[in-house]
């Protein structure tokens, strides 16, 4: 009982000490004082719902189902991309094998241009190496002109044999 009385007494004392008079919010005064902020608030009405468009990430992260779906899409995209990469690499090798049918074909401007487009000067060198393989190693003492002359002759003869 004594405790309760003390409690009440303390409540009264605190109320008196804080000297409470309920503060009233003056809307008009506030609007005038903080005109810029109020205008910012109103400007959102003009923008409409677009002012609070939820981001895609938020939507995805909202439920576990959407999270799983997003993960599945990512995995599918990665696997599709990697599969596509493999097939394009295979396509490259087939074109090389097609091109490297004969040294003459290998040395045509078109094949060299293709090789250059595919892999730059390194690809051209590689193609040349592959083209020269069936011909065999060249002695160092031979000049470039001689090599080319011999090469052209061989090319002509191989064309002739094919015909």
């Amino acid at each position: 009982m004594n405790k309760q009385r003390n409690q009440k007494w303390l409540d009264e004392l605190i109320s008196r000490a804080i000297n409470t008079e309920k503060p009233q919010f003056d809307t008009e005064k506030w609007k005038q004082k903080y005109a810029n902020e109020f205008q910012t608030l109103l400007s959102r009405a003009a923008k409409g719902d677009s002012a609070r468009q939820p981001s895609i990430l938020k939507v995805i992260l909202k439920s576990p189902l959407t999270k799983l779906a997003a993960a599945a899409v990512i995995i599918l995209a990665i696997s599709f991309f990697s599969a596509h990469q493999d097939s394009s690499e295979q396509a490259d090798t087939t074109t090389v094998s097609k091109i490297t049918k004969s040294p003459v074909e290998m040395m045509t401007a078109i094949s060299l241009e293709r090789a250059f487009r595919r892999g730059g000067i390194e690809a051209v060198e590689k193609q040349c190496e592959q083209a020269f393989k069936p011909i065999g190693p060249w002695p160092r003492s031979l000049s470039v002109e001689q090599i080319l002359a011999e090469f052209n002759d061989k090319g002509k003869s191989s064309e002739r044999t094919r015909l």
Partner: protein
Amino acid sequence: MEADSAKIMSRALEKEKSVAQKPDTALVKAAINGDAEGFTELCRRYYPAMVAIAHSILGDRHLAEDAAQQAFAKAAVKLPQLKKESRFAGWLAVICRNVAKDMARRTENLRTTDVLSTIAAKSNDDDTTETVREAISKLSASARELIFLRYYDGMSYEQISAVLGISEQAVSGRMRRAKKKMADYLRRNGFGEVRL
């Protein structure tokens, strides 16, 4: 002419009433989308609580009202950043606390003891009231805030828990401890019978 103005007035009153009956979350949503009436209703609802929070930090009623108004201005701009509408009160309280602390730093009035004792000296209150004010000023910032929220506007524990973002049980516990501390202080200062 008079009938028209009466109609307009009654319509405005009806609209005001309907806005006042809306729950916080609906008002917050409306305010986010730029509804001025929704926002001002929220201001009206939480003004006393924000003034109480600011007063507990600043120790001055007028400064506290300024801080609360400034907090509303900040909230008006930052409202789209609010993640959950249901946590508006707690979010607003954080803004208000920061504004009041900034203000206190600027005016170098962070020590509420001085301010409270100044108020006590200015007014013609008795010694008891002055001692109670001292007891309040000796409390921790969070306990002082709780006391102000409870006795400023007679807020219920439910309302306080919404503003502080803690459970009602926690509010009750903190309140009990704060009052006990005050009672201890009062007993040490000549109020021998105070036991809670």
